[in-house]
């Protein structure tokens, strides 16, 4: 049974890394060809000889199959290759970016999940009230707004208008910090808006799920019994109802971790946050195959691990599942 599961994960992983390899290469365009540039920009141009030389340097002159072989070999060895555009080791580039993105994702899922679940519970308890209706309609609207739009709103309102938060970046450039606390505060100040943006998006998802499953639970006999016993609202809600409604919420939590990776991609670009998302955008734009592969691989691993965690957690939460 366990072997079967592991095999399944392995097969998924294999399919994905294969897609990772071929998809970017099927896209038209190549990393050395710059016919046009963005407005106001000048791109360097290469002669055919130089292009051939670069291709040989990066091993792109070999057949697709041979490249695929060395790519697989690299992955087994933990070598993700060398970025064409950035001119450095893919592993190092990604390693330096991961902490930024991971903190955004985790923090926003925790904060958004907490607040969203709480509001969802309350909404379910006061179902039908004006406050429930109000909250519900707002959350539905938020859940449909793309993350980057919310980000732009915060950027304009809280950073540009009010000047409370910095406009961009992950830390103040060239700052002289007096102590570690200053460093922490600076990072927190820079990370606040991106985290807030993602949390708001996450919150709506959690709210809807929590409200739904709570409403189902609320009509169960044991809740009526609990109410009849005269237990307090808080106790009924969080002890009796929430623990039984936890399964879909937990699923949502892990599902959102995967989804948040997609969200950060756009939000990081809004705030020029130095994470994986802004890196990925650039990598795709310049057809940097090794880097695209590296980033996809990282994200894939993350999502697969999260899925595996859901499986394990499920068993914990609901002993009926084997």
């Amino acid at each position, binding site marked *: 049974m366990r072997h079967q599961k592991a095999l399944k994960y392995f097969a998924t992983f294999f399919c994905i890394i294969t897609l990772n390899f071929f998809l970017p290469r099927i896209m038209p365009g190549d990393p050395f060809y710059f016919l046009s540039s963005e407005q*106001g*920009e000048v791109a360097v141009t290469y002669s055919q000889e130089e292009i051939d030389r670069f291709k040989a340097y990066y091993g792109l002159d070999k057949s697709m199959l041979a490249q695929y072989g060395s790519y697989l070999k690299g992955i087994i060895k933990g070598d993700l290759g060398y970025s064409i555009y950035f001119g450095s080791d893919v592993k190092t580039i990604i390693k330096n970016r991961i902490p930024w993105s991971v903190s955004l994702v*985790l923090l926003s899922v925790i904060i958004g999940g907490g607040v969203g679940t709480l509001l969802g519970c309350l909404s379910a308890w006061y179902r039908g009230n004006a406050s429930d209706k109000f909250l519900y309609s707002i959350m539905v609207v938020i859940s449909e707004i793309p993350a980057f739009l919310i980000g732009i709103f915060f950027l304009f309102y809280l950073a540009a208008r009010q000047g409370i938060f910095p406009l961009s970046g*992950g830390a103040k450039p060239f700052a002289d910090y007096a102590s570690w606390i200053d460093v922490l505060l600076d990072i927190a100040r820079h990370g606040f808006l991106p985290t807030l943006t993602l949390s708001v998006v996450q919150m709506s998802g959690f709210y809807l799920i929590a409200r739904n499953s709570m409403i189902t639970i609320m009509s169960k006999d044991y809740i009526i019994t609990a109410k009849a016993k005269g237990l307090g609202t808080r106790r009924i809600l969080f002890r009796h109802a929430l623990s039984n409604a936890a399964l879909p919420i937990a699923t949502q939590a892990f599902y959102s971790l995967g989804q948040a990776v997609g969200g950060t991609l756009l939000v990081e670009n809004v705030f020029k946050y*130095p994470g994986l998302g802004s890196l990925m955008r650039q990598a795709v734009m310049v057809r940097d195959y090794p880097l695209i592969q590296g980033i996809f691989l990282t994200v894939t691993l993350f999502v697969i691990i999260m899925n595996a965690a859901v499986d394990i957690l499920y068993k914990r939460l609901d002993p009926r599942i084997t």
Partner: protein
Amino acid sequence: MKKSKITKLLAAMILIMAILNMAGCGAKTTEKSTGSTGSQSGSLVIRLEGGDWGLPSPFAHYSRGPGASKMRLIYDSLLEKGEDGLIPWLAKEWTISSDGREYTFLLNSKVKWHDGKMLTAQDVKFSFEYFAKHPPVSNSLLIDGKPFIEKIEVIDEDRVKIAVKEPNATVLDRVGIVRIIPEHIWKDIDDPKKVMDLDKLVGCGPYILTDYSQEQGKYRFQAFKDYWGRKPGVDVIEFIPVSDPVLAFENGEIDVLDVPPDLIDRYRNNKEFKILKSPAFWGYKLLFNMEKKPELADINVRKAIAHAVNVDELIEKVARGAAVPASPGYLPIDHIWYNPDVTRYDFDIEKAKELLNNKSLNLVLLISDSQQEARIAELLKINFAKAGINIDVRSVDMKTRDSCVKNCDYELAIIGHGGWGADADCLREVYAATAACDAGPTSNVICGYSNPDINRLCKEQLAELDEQKRKSMIMELQKLISDEIPILPIYNTIDYTVFKPEKYDGWVHVFDHHAVTHNKLSYLEQDK
């Protein structure tokens, strides 16, 4: 009980993440200790829009964007681009032999590398030879993809002689801008692309790189106090990440802004600000594929299309007024060799219909996914339809469009690129190349087109060393091209740069580039 556990867990997680981040911070910032680092009070620090454009080594900066200009702050060249043309730089004088095959450069003495060693003629020779073996990102030592230098000789400690294979009008331009790198740093390095160490970035230019972060896209350059040439006017240049340049400028985070045309009025008639208008060296052009659509080989069809383009409307609606109509002879109005007397094609739908004999034409127009191009395409579509030319607009991402154009897999295409201010030899690369020998915007073959007169003139101008004679050839060539319109240049954009002169007022444009922040002269005191 449970709650406090959760709180503890949360707190621990936040702490871990903060630590992770700090570890990231520590890893990503490579700083160089040069003793002179650290901003002293009273020194002029200029902050500019950053973003990651690669380590500014000749081998490692990125091929797009302003990576090369940052690299040039560190490394000097024999000549430099001035406001009206090439000016003496590391080489204070040069002579060209009468057969046009030997160039002798007399170097400035007392030029110091950032590490205190002296620059020698041998360093110059080494640089050219090293670049031949290990091409830099931006390589000017090739003509049509082939090396043209035959031999480099050190004559004495101040003089270097470069012999070329054939006389060529563009040699000085190409040789002059080659970066000079120190032999004592690079001689033992076999793979310069992998050099990522700030300590290796020793140049003889006016600035030293003291800090660079790839993730955050920030750079810090400090003036080199023993610089041999003009005195640096800015003590420290910092490039910082910016999400919205206008907001950042308004907040005082950056000192220079390329202001969007719609916002110029905000800074006009205000003593606090100064606005500089750039030369129009970035532009859009419409490509005709005469191989795939033989109809386009008919000159009347091309002329009809030219008459159906309402350039003024495009400039007003798409460029918001910040552009000038492109010349049908290609070289833009601000080019030093622009010919004002080329054939023009006014917006005239009736004329277009007449030229088409009232027949209709169906074409697919390929564009990238940029908003500007989409707007141009939609406006073209409306006017074209009135003239009986029905176009179907296809939008793909930039790299896909470029690859389709390269492979002649399009009917009509719009591309936008810079470099229109380059040496007039770009006419040859655009209009007379017989094979795509280069992957540049100015050197793709026009699919299915070749004109013997254009080809002949292009070839002759390249070999003509007399500047006046060459210039008149270029004038003639532009006229010929405007009659033929094998490509239809649409418009060239203008940038407006805003800054506060009270803080720093040294910004200048050089003769072939549109951005004040990209040239070295902007950061140096003016020659008196």
